[in-house]
Each structure stands twice: as structure tokens, then as C-alpha cells.
């Protein structure tokens, strides 16, 4: 440090210690103000800009205070990161936001791990217990965040399998790995006899392996929890690295990020009625006994609607993947889907009304979009359908379950992008009492979030999970890919309801377009 200080003494003099500390506190408060402004949709963009400005100023005062301003070698890296980041942000599609956030979580974790590695090696010779321990912890958390996030992003981007991967002795391996890592951390803190670079390497590799083990067994619908948690960890890694390098801003801002991620994780767990520990330990909803039950139920259904099953049996294994397979296949299936649609409407001929009459006459409509809508790229059609209905002087509202989509708030962003006004989008608690009064509920690609089994089917993975009260509505029109149970593996009793339920199976981008045609 002293060498650098000789380069430019005057710059550091501008910022005396008290001024620098005061500025750090002010900038931390600016970041908090930015987050506070995020609580109102109208002011959120101002909040984001304030936070951005605070970080920019934070970089500048650090450059001045630590006399790094003339060290030109650091600028190419900053420019490269800036350009890459801006391109990434510009190119990403809204449906890909979960994987982008996961990727950025990992990148943040990696950066903190590197910073902490520097601190670790510099501090190692001394007897600085606090510094060494915090540096080790930051390395460990940063590396877990990196590898865990890369696996999560790979799953979300469908490079890796979306199903939970459970290795033999998975839990035992994870626990023992964690114990070894903690042993290494305390070794680094208390003893100096181990080769520091070896110790560092050991922590880096083992933490990375732990991150992978932790992340591979998380399945698709548990992703919101995982991403929130990794978001939190990336902040915690930054904060702890801040302890190691004694940087106030790093500690405060990292702490804020860690707290926010933890909060979102809690919300997600509550919304899914899952315990965080269960998800971390890989107690996923997909268990052997359940898939057996699933098969049995599948058989029952086959009797009921053999034909429909035949049509979709070829695609049964991985509906999500197939759904995303794109328009080409959708077009090819079009004839088949039409058949199903017609069959469905004909079997319900005994009903006093057909779905088209119900849609035409409904004045109060609630639309329930799920991740299936996003997979079918049907959000624009949904918006179009809503627009047509509004023209027929109906009131149309959207009801969003907190865990719909692959990350918190994902469904909202997709709807807003499609042109839906955010005033029409309601959170579960704000709209749940309206279902019993509504004339019609239109479900698009959602299942578990409206499964009434959550209220009474004790012992099932979704028991106790708050759900949208879709079943209280007198008329329900469901556009789902198939009638298989959702991610939870629990059957949805709504499908078996005799009155006022119409199910239109198939790719929502096709089936919705048909309904829209009939309406116009």
C-alpha cells in the first residue's frame, strides 16, 4: 500500500478518514433508500437509479481514498465487465430472467471468493484470527454460491436435467463435506503450520463440490427457493469478504443483499409450505411412493379418457421440455389438439352451458396464469383474450400465486412485458376472496397453486400450502397441457369436478388461439 501512496498523496488527502467514513454511511443509506423506493411500482425505477449511483460513487471514493485512481491497470477489467454486463442485460429475454439472476448470483459469489483469497494469503502470515477466519468463510460461501448457481442456471436454461439428481449417500456426502470444509476454515484461523496455498486450494475445491451437491438435487419447482437462497449467499459472501478486507461499504451493502435474499427465501418457503432445510436436504416432492400413486391414478384416468391419453402418451415423460419444443411441433399437433378440444366439449354436452356461452356471458373473470403459460409462450394470447373480454365489458383480473414461475415475481414480469397493466395483476391474498363471486376463472398452465388438496390432503407435499381459491368459482375453464399432477405429484380434484369445469388440453398457444378465434 505504501508504494502506491507515494504515487499520489494529494488525492487521499481530500478524503480524510472521518469524511470517508461519513461518505460510506451516507452511501449505505442511499442504497437503503433505493430499496425503500422499490416498495412502490411508480418509484421503483428511481430507487434503482439511486442504488446504482451509490455504488458508482462508492467505487470513486474507494479509488480516491485508497490512492488507486492512477493505477490504470485496473481500468481495462472494469471496462470489460461493464460492457459484458450491459450486453447481457440488453440481450436477455424476460422468460430467461431466472437463469440470468442465478448466473449473476454465481458471478458475484466468485468475485467475493477471489477477493477473500487475496485477503487470506496476505493475512496468513500474521496472527489475525478475525481476518483469517472471515476470509476463509467468504471463500467458502463464495465458492458454494458460484458452483451452486451455475448448476441452478444450467437447470433453468435446460442444459442440465430439471429433475432432482440424487446421488447415492447424497445427504451423508453433503454433511461430511460440510464438516471437512468447516474444519479447514478453523484450521486456517488457528494454525499456521499448513501450507496456506494448499489450504486455500482445498477450501476452494471442496466448497465448489459442496455447491454442486447442494444444487443438483433441487427440482424445477423448488428453484424459486434455491435462487433466493443463492441470492442471499452472494450478499453474505460479499459482506464477509468486506470484514476480511475491512471495507465498510462492502460490509453494509453485502449485509443488505444477504438479508433481502433470506427474506425472499422465507417468503418462498412459506408460499410452498416447505421447510428450507427439507429443500436443502433434498427432500423433494418427487418420491417413489408418490410416483407409484401417480401411475395408478394415471391408469384410472385412462379409462375415463382413453383417446386423449393416447394422443399425449408419446409426450408424457417430459411435458415441460416438449412444450418448449416450439411452434413447429405445436402446428403438427394442431389437428390432434382440435380433436381433443371437440371431444371435451362434446362429452360435456349434457351441461346446460358450453364454455363459449360462459365466456361470452361472464362479466367478472379471473385469469390464473402458471409457469405452463410461460412455457407455451402464451402470455400474449392471454393478454389478447383478456382484451377481447374487456371489450365485451367484462372485468378481467389476473391472480398470481407467490411461487408461480421459476423465481419470485417472475409471472408478473412476463405479464407486464406482454402488455398487461400492473393494476390488473393481483397478489394471492388480495384476490382470493373474489373467486366465489367471479363468473368465470380461466386457468392457463397452472396446477399445484390451485390444488384444493392442499387444504385437506394430509401427508401430501402440498398439504398446508396456501392456494388460489379457484375451486370456489362456479365456472372454471382450464387450459393445461395435460391432466397429470403438477410438480408436487398430487392429483388435482378440480379436474374431476362434474359441474362448471371445462378442461382444454394441449399447447396453450394453440388452444387459446382457437378459443380466441371462436370469440371474435
Amino acid at each position, binding site marked *: 500500500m505504501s508504494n502506491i501512496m507515494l504515487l499520489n498523496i494529494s488525492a487521499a488527502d481530500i478524503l480524510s478518514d472521518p469524511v470517508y467514513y461519513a461518505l460510506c454511511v451516507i452511501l449505505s443509506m442511499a442504497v437503503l433508500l433505493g430499496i425503500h423506493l422499490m416498495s412502490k411500482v411508480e418509484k421503483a425505477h428511481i430507487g434503482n437509479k439511486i442504488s446504482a449511483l451509490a455504488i458508482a460513487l462508492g467505487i470513486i471514493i474507494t479509488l480516491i481514498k485508497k490512492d488507486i485512481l492512477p493505477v490504470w491497470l485496473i481500468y481495462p477489467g472494469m471496462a470489460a465487465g461493464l460492457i459484458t454486463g450491459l450486453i447481457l*442485460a440488453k440481450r436477455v429475454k424476460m422468460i430467461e430472467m431466472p437463469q440470468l439472476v442465478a448466473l449473476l448470483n454465481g458471478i458475484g459469489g466468485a468475485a467475493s471468493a477471489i477477493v477473500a483469497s487475496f485477503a487470506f494469503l*496476505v493475512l496468513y502470515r500474521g496472527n489475525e484470527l478475525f481476518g483469517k477466519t472471515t476470509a476463509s468463510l467468504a471463500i467458502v460461501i463464495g465458492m458454494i454460491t458460484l458452483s451452486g448457481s451455475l448448476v441452478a442456471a444450467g437447470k433453468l436454461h435446460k442444459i442440465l436435467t430439471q429433475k432432482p439428481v440424487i446421488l447415492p449417500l447424497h445427504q451423508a456426502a453433503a454433511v461430511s463435506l460440510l464438516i471437512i470444509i468447516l474444519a479447514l476454515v478453523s484450521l486456517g484461523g488457528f494454525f499456521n503450520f499448513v501450507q496456506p496455498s494448499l489450504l486455500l486450494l482445498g477450501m476452494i475445491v471442496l466448497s465448489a463440490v459442496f455447491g454442486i451437491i447442494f444444487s443438483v438435487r433441487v427440482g424445477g419447482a423448488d428453484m424459486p427457493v434455491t435462487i433466493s437462497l443463492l441470492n442471499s449467499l*452472494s450478499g453474505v459472501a460479499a459482506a464477509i469478504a468486506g470484514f476480511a478486507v475491512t471495507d465498510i461499504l462492502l460490509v453494509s451493502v453485502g*449485509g443488505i443483499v444477504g438479508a433481502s435474499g433470506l427474506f425472499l427465501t422465507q417468503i418462498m418457503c412459506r408460499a410452498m409450505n416447505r421447510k428450507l432445510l427439507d429443500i436443502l436436504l433434498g427432500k423433494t416432492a418427487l418420491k417413489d411412493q408418490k410416483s407409484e400413486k401417480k401411475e395408478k391414478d394415471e391408469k384410472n384416468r385412462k379409462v375415463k379418457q382413453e383417446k386423449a391419453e393416447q394422443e399425449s402418451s408419446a409426450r408424457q415423460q417430459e411435458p415441460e421440455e416438449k412444450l418448449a419444443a416450439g411452434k413447429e411441433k405445436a402446428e403438427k399437433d394442431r389437428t390432434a389438439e382440435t380433436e381433443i378440444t371437440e371431444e371435451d366439449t362434446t362429452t360435456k354436452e349434457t351441461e346446460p352451458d358450453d364454455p363459449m356461452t360462459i365466456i361470452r356471458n361472464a362479466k367478472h373473470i379471473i385469469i390464473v396464469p402458471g409457469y405452463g403459460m410461460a412455457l407455451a409462450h402464451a402470455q400474449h394470447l392471454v393478454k389478447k383474450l383478456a382484451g377481447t373480454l374487456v371489450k365485451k365489458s367484462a372485468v378481467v383480473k389476473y391472480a398470481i400465486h407467490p411461487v408461480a414461475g421459476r423465481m419470485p*415475481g417472475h409471472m408478473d414480469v412476463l405479464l407486464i412485458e406482454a402488455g398487461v397493466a400492473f393494476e390488473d395483476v393481483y397478489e394471492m391474498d388480495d384476490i382470493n376472496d373474489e373467486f366465489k363471486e367471479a363468473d368465470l376463472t380461466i386457468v392457463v398452465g397452472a396446477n399445484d397453486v390451485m390444488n384444493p388438496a392442499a387444504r385437506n390432503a394430509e401427508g401430501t407435499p402440498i398439504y398446508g400450502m396456501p392456494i388460489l381459491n379457484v375451486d370456489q368459482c362456479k365456472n372454471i375453464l382450464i387450459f393445461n397441457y395435460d391432466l397429470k399432477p403438477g410438480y408436487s405429484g398430487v392429483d388435482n380434484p378440480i379436474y374431476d369436478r362434474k359441474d362448471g369445469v371445462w378442461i382444454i388440453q394441449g399447447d396453450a398457444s394453440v388452444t387459446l388461439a382457437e378459443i380466441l378465434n371462436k370469440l371474435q
Partner: protein
Amino acid sequence: MDLIQYILLGIFVVATTVGYMLINNVPSRLHTPLMSGMNALSGVTILGAILATATALAGDKPVTGYIFGSLAIILAMINVAGGFSVTNRMLKMFERKKEEDE
């Protein structure tokens, strides 16, 4: 532990608590922009990266230090720039739709 370390711990506790309380008020429809904003904020580790790189450049292994330091700077800067920019893009979407409706 030195005084500065106690101060850091205090700051950590205060920032975490206040942040936690504020995030409680963020509506769930803004949770995705909130998370991408948090991505940007976790890029604050760039401060540490800058400091580490500059220190390493003056140390006895400047080349290795520079390579890893620059890597940290690039990664952290991707977070800062990408995070804030994509958050801005999403929030503008919320803004635009509102204006169209009025």
C-alpha cells in the same frame, strides 16, 4: 479484535436489520426486479477487487495478482452493470404500461 472490526460488525447488524425490514414492504410483483437489483448490489465486492488488485500490483507477485484481481474486477463489474441495467429495463416496462393505460 480491533475497534474497526467491532464497528464493522455493528454496521453489518444495522444494515441487515434495516434492509430486512425495508424489503418486507416490497410487493411481490416487484420481487424479480428486486432480486436482479440485489445482484447488482452484490457486485459491490468490486471495491474489494479494486483494492486487492492494486495491493497485489505493488506486491511481490504482481502478474499472478493482476490476473486474479482483474478476473474479480470483471466479474464484479458484470454484476454491477448487468444487474442495474436489467433491473432498469424491467422497471421501465412497469412504467411504460402504466402510462399507456392512463
